[in-house]
């Protein structure tokens, strides 16, 4: 059983909704990246989504684009991201880590090399936004190394394709709450609930919902039917400009604590 599977099993046992914060690796501060990762867990994160900076993030809105640009300007690449995961694992061997990003950095690093280095560092899964199921054959070395490929489903996903995604899902299925880019806000909870129900009829995989969730209220609404909520842009925006470890930790707690509390209300 993978670390992600164990985490969702534990959440289910406890009757809790998972909280999956997204941060861009290297932002706001490369020096305090590991501090930030531990702060996320202390503030209630169940899984960490770590964004690998990419120069051309086609699916991301301005907040995450700019975070990527800042990280790239500081020279952050895949090797550094994996070094942070290794350092994080010295103190935390339970919290699953999913690397989220785009295919080119992995392709250039080399699939076989990435797979072995990521597994060794303690990465549990990858969510490669521009690598749909049809192109996922290149990721075989990752699967061989035990890394789970987190698949996305979207409002535009047709029924036949949804069945295919559900059949291939591992770790969890990430439902994109609306057709758009990260950070936009146009949640239609009823529509999302209906689509998540459709997924549940076809798959045992836990369903995480992301895009457009930005605070305790929106997280609580999604928690009515999702196994986990993903929060990215709003958190990245809140962290922007923090430079000290204290400030990063304080902002992380101030942002995530109310969301964690809202998710835990029964």
């Amino acid at each position, binding site marked *: 059983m993978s670390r992600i599977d164990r985490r969702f099993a534990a959440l289910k046992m406890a009757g809790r909704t998972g909280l999956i914060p997204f941060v861009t690796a290297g932002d706001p501060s490369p020096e305090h990246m590991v501090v930030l990762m531990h702060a996320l867990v202390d503030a209630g994160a169940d899984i960490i989504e770590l964004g690998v900076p990419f120069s051309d993030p*086609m699916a991301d809105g301005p907040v995450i684009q700019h975070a990527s640009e800042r990280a790239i300007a500081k020279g952050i690449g895949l090797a550094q991201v994996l070094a942070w995961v290794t350092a994080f694992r010295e103190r935390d061997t339970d919290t699953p880590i999913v690397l989220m990003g785009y295919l080119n950095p992995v392709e250039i690093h080399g699939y076989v090399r990435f797979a072995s280095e990521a597994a060794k560092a303690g990465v549990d899964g990858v969510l490669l936004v521009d690598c749909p199921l049809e192109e996922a054959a290149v990721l075989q070395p990752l699967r061989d190394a035990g890394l789970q490929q987190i698949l996305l489903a979207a409002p535009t996903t047709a029924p036949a394709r949804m069945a295919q995604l559900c059949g291939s899902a591992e770790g969890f299925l990430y439902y994109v709450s609306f057709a758009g880019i990260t950070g936009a806000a146009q949640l239609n909870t009823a529509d999302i609930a209906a689509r998540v129900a459709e997924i549940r009829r076809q798959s045992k995989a836990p369903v995480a919902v992301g895009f457009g969730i930005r605070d305790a209220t929106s997280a609580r609404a999604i928690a009515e039917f999702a196994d986990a909520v993903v929060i990215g842009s709003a958190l990245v925006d809140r962290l922007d400009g923090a430079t000290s470890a204290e400030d990063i930790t304080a902002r992380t707690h101030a942002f995530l604590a109310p969301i964690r509390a809202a998710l835990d209300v029964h």
Partner: protein
Amino acid sequence: MNKIVDFNAYPDAQGRFGNYGGSYVAETLMAPLAELTEAYLRLREDPEFIAELDHDLKHYVGRPSPIYHAERLSKHVGGARILLKREDLNHTGAHKINNTVGQALVAKRMGKPRIIAETGAGQHGVASATVAARLGLKCVVYMGAVDIERQKINVYRMKLLGADVVPVTSGSKTLKDALNEAMRDWVTNVADTFYIIGTVAGPHPYPLMVRDFNAIVGREARAQMLEQYGRLPDVLTACVGGGSNAIGLFHAFLNDADVRIVGAEAAGEGIATGHHAASLAAGRPGVLHGNRTYVLCDDNGQITETHSVSAGLDYPGVGPEHAFLKDANRAEYVGVTDDEALKAFHLLARTEGILAALESSHAVAQAMKLARDMPKDGIVLCNLSGRGDKDVHTIAAREGVDV
């Protein structure tokens, strides 16, 4: 080549040209891409659609464009005859209209009232705004803030045609970032929007569709060669940014094994300086903008900023079919510097009375290099993909002239 390859057999059903191409996009776009692929594969066999396209190409674009023997240029160079395929004479002044006329008809058939486009030099933006105006479609063009600055005339042309031009300020603020932003628009407005990609890149079916619409260039040129010269050219050349005019000229000749094919990429200030946009000559296989192809990137996989005096060649990727042709050794791709292109621009202006686009001037420079080493009865066919009116300010500024 060792074995016979049927180049008409590509791409396959998944949009792959050998190892290149494919559909590397976010899940949200998979459904609209499937819808587009289905519609386009149907329309390309539909006699009514083909007749409508042919009619528009003849009566609106002004096709066929001639092949013209540039005698004084050829004589100046010494060596083979240089023939120019005059895509600069098309309506809107470049080959780009071949594709936008086609895609706009697809958009109309699919019932999409809004079109979006990305543009670098502005030629594709103008060509998109043009067909949108003609069909009464709303048009939004994404353009890098840097490109807006260096292609002011085309920005104004687009506005005159009723398009909204949206400046893109992310990343390097050039063509690649405009493409990202257009993709973000499309993912947000998939229901009513048709994305007219301007080059043979992007996810399947774009490399196929854009190639098909530009392949009229090579089909015409091949027939014109046989009719007027009784033979095929010895060598073809065209400039390659994304590669739409090049694939347009090359495609009809791919199975003519005796015809040599040379693509001219932007070597900028020289490939050794790192300031260039020669993805095939100096890049490596990677994934960008929805397809696997040759890209310019660093060891972290970050796409690098490119340089070319011509905005239309300033792109860090290239169409996947070109990547395939390079690996198959069917086409060669070489670099032409800013200075070489500018020299060719001036020489063509003075010897033939033709102001070529800076993009096309790269092809002219390459045609001159090729012709020089060939016998006098040889023929180099060069795609003069666009006219240079849009570039006169850039050239004047570069040469210290106040206009």
